[in-house]
């Protein structure tokens, strides 16, 4: 087990090698957050109302800031890229040579990068913009705790979905932009751009039932107190169910991939 902690640590340290990236990322993230907030300000000004669909502008700004924090520290395209590359170049053989689980190694690695980006990029950006625009506190201490739990779940889900896409790339064996497809799905169905309460029906209902909803929408909605206590527990269970399903998918695809590598030589 200590090996996986060491991987997380080393991936944290590896990131330090690219210090210039930090500033570029902070800048990029700031622009993104400013743009999102500006869109909501314009939208609310356009409607001329203080509360739309039961949500105030202040809540919407909080939602936009949180969205950046929750999803900002994971880079699905990097996970997909890393899996795809090591499968295609055959570097994955190196992982097969070690007494290790490759998926668990990837997860440990991602945990390290997540903490690094959280500490150096996401939290500074969100804190800065929050000072600028003002950010609401969690709806209650219970909601705060549940937000943290959902955040962790969101991280695990996003990792599993990305790993699944990365493994699928092994069979397609083309430069097919799976990362682009996942990016598009996330933009729309995670709720990072627009919360589902502004979606038209039946799109809103569909979106609420897709696993992507647990990545941004549910954590944020819980922070803002939009879900009742029984609903929170229900959705925690559902989210864990999705995570278990994706975990099974990843492990199954990994077994298929590794048996194909060992039988057919990749």
């Amino acid at each position: 087990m200590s090996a996986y902690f060491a991987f997380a640590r080393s991936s944290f340290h590896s990131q330090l090698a690219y210090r210039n990236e930090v500033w570029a990322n902070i800048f990029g993230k700031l622009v993104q957050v400013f743009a999102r907030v500006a869109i909501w300000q314009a939208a609310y000004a356009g409607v001329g109302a203080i509360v739309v669909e039961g949500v105030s502008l202040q809540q919407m700004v909080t939602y936009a800031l949180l969205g950046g924090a929750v999803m900002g520290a994971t880079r699905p395209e990097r996970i997909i890229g890393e899996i795809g590359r090591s499968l295609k170049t055959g570097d994955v053989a190196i992982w097969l040579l070690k007494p290790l689980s490759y998926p668990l190694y990837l997860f440990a690695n991602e945990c390290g990068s997540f903490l690094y980006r959280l500490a150096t990029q996401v939290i500074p950006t969100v804190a800065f913009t929050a000072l600028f625009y003002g950010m609401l506190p969690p709806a209650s201490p219970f909601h705060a705790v549940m937000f943290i739990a959902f955040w962790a779940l969101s991280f695990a889900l996003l990792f599993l979905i990305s790993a699944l896409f990365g493994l699928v790339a092994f069979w397609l064996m083309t430069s097919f932009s799976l990362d682009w497809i996942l990016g598009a799905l996330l933009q729309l169905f995670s709720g990072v751009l627009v919360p589902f309460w502004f979606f038209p029906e039946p799109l809103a209902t569909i979106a609420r039932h897709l696993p992507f909803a647990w990545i941004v929408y549910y954590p944020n909605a819980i922070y803002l107190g939009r879900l009742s206590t029984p609903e929170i527990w229900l959705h925690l269970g559902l989210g864990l169910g999705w995570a278990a399903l994706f975990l099974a998918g990843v492990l199954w695809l990994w077994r298929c991939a590794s048996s194909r590598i060992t039988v057919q030589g990749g």
Partner: protein
Amino acid sequence: MTALIEARGVSKRFRQHKRFPGLLGALKTLVTNEYTEVLAVSDIGFDITAGEAVGYLGPNGAGKSTMIKMMTGILVPSAGTLSVLGRTPHLKRMDNAREIGVVFGQRSQLWWDLPLVDSFTLHQRIYDIPAARYADNLRRFSELLDLTPFLDRAVRQLSLGQRMRAEIVMSLLHDPKILFLDEPTIGLDVVAKDAVRRFLAEINRERGVTIILTTHDLQDIETICPRLIMVDHSRLIFDGELRSLRAALGSARRLTLEFASDPGPLPLRTAALVSDEGLRKNYLIEREDISLVAILSEVGSGRGLKDVALHEPDIEEVIRTFYQRRNADQRSNAKARAS
């Protein structure tokens, strides 16, 4: 004494999706299900006992890496049985992994962005190496291969030679019983090659680590491996001591005679004249049993012989003549079939 590695009739066949050239071909590739079969290793058998150092030699594409991958458990043989340390490698990959070390000349196992020593500590964690043993191994190997000056440098800043030395040190930190090396000296300069060879020979001798290395650099084998397994076109063509290779494959020694004054044409019974530069004459000695004394007595004392040089054929030459002879045989066989 039982063998550490036992290979019996091991074959590996790859099925490759048939690809068609061109744009239409690419579409055709997507819809067809045709395969071409490539035989990478066919019917190879050998035993390797503990403490041996074996060179696995062959030209590119002879199936050397495929064999290494099967022995390490990351490829499944298509036929035959393979046993490494009493286990079938691909069925017990994890157990096998703990007791073997593997170095790929063309594939780095070090962590690119971290200081070198971090790769080693990660390795310690992966293999659960007790701290004292790890420290002891690291110190000894680093000294032997002179790694100490750049232990704190990031791997991406190291030269190829430094990196390969580091790869080898890492592969030995968990005291593997067998060390597999796939082209460990590829791309290295003469000094680095020499350091690696001396180190491997020492590890084999002092620690009794069994070494199996693939290479197409014969110098590697001359320094490290008393035993040689040669493969070509997926088949085993020679397995035995390096010394007996010459006898088995039959390659002539070269003899140069230098004279104080030109003795004129000088054909000999014992050696065939290949070039005559007057004062200096070159001969080939085809038969192993002819001694230098026999030749010199045939030349006689009255010819003004000044100097004699006898060249044992180096291994490259031996192998070159082997391939030439075999290709000639194949051509004549083909002709015989055609007519």
